[in-house]
């Protein structure tokens, strides 16, 4: 197998556009509030991981790149990862859900914690949702604790629209769970092992 070197570089125009148009489509124009003074960086090692980097860190990365020993190929992380680009499509991950939590207004609140174990969310698990959603929309998944405290569980793409929920059988999958992919917070525990 050919060993590819890791690159940590500013996203190209095209990559930037892929990410920004996803964010605008899913979260609305308000999301630009936090994106305005940030840059998008790509860590490329086979897959393209997308990071949000503030101005100060960006300058430091460039400084490191221009020094006698370019350690940017050793950058493991800078700023905050939000997802990946695959076949010219942006794929949001749980970290991106964390980062844009405030802007993810379409939320689904579940009764059980099984999503945290990489399991599907089915109609019977849903307690409520905040705004109507369509098939293909990205949703933030929350659990409700006692006294209505809400805790973030992860993100997922709706497989059915909210208008279908009342008539769908209770075992209809709304969001698919993945054990080996970073969509739910339980992934941290699975990943550390």
């Amino acid at each position, binding site marked *: 197998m050919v060993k590819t070197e890791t690159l940590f570089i500013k996203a190209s125009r095209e990559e930037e556009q892929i990410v920004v148009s996803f964010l605008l489509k899913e979260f609305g124009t308000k999301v630009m509030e936090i994106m305005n003074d940030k840059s998008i960086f790509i860590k490329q090692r086979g897959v393209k991981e997308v990071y949000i980097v503030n101005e100060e860190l960006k300058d430091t990365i460039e400084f490191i790149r221009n020094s006698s020993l370019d*350690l940017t190929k050793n950058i493991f992380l*800078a700023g905050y990862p939000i997802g990946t680009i695959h076949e010219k499509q942006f794929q949001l991950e749980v970290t991106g859900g964390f980062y844009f939590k405030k802007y993810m207004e379409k939320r689904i609140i579940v009764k059980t914690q099984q999503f945290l174990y990489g399991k599907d969310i089915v109609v019977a698990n849903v307690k409520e949702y905040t705004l109507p959603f369509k098939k293909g929309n990205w949703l933030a998944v929350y*659990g409700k604790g006692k*006294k209505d405290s809400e805790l973030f569980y992860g993100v997922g793409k709706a497989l059915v629209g909210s208008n279908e929920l009342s008539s769908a059988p209770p075992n209809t999958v709304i969001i698919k769970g993945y054990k080996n992919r970073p969509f739910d917070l339980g992934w941290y525990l699975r990943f550390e092992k």
Partner: protein
Amino acid sequence: MLDEVSYTDVYDLGNKLGYLPYMIQRFVELIGEKETIELLKFNEKKLKTVIRLNNLKAQFSEIEFLLLQKKIVFKRIREIPEAREIVHSPISIGATIEYLNGYYMVQGKNSMFPPLILDPKPHEIIGDFAAAPGGKTTHIAQLMKNKGKIISIERSKRRCTALYSNIIRMGVQNTIVINTDARDIVKSKIKFDKILLDAPCSGSGVIINDPSRKTSKKEEDLARYSKLQTELLDTAIQTLKEGGTIVYCTCSLEPEENELVIDRVLKDNDIKLVDILFSFERGVTKFANYSFSPELKKAVRLYPHKTNGEGFFIAKMVKESG
């Protein structure tokens, strides 16, 4: 059980508990027989679980409320506003949804002192020269309110993974993690306001967490650690701005890894020790055939049996201007 038996022979006790004899000799030289017995007994206990509340994610009061809802009983720890000792928990503290949301870090109490002593400020550039798994990087980010920047360096790629997931979980956004040998960082020409060097060490202060240390290190290994620690500290000093601060620490109790390292760099660099204002035992100025600068009294030693926590040595230094 150990409390019931009155051990008069510390070597006998050390032998019974499975320590290599050289370790007991060194402890006795350092703290005397009576205290060595206390240390050995303490090492057979279990440390209290301590968490650090993360106000990058939520206010302390909100996190406390969520913990109380789960019937987790905790108490505050004097001198560390962000720390809570877990008195009782009906569930595993490292697998709650609050943990996954980064509302707290499970972390030894004494490991919170080095970042507090470093005292990073939001506008500064901080180096964390031996960073994984990131208890201290994420604490530093919290003290900086996620502003300024932290360069976290870690040589082990495998350990970078844990560092990565802790940084993300705790919501830290002001950090660059570089997977390299910290001795290489000089070539990057970055100059730091403050550096934390939580050096790789023999770990003789944390036998309570890792009983294999009773036999895993030979006396000769200490010289190898001491050499690496001195090189790392030398590098740190070179990359520090004039007037900048370094906090050097280890979780080892061995003077070769602590006072000797500091004594060497004091001789070769324009750097001076500054007082640490917490009231712990002071660094030693004599050990075996060594004698160290009297300035080493400014460094502190956190003995496990005296602090009810992990063993630590901490020294704070300032680089003098040209």
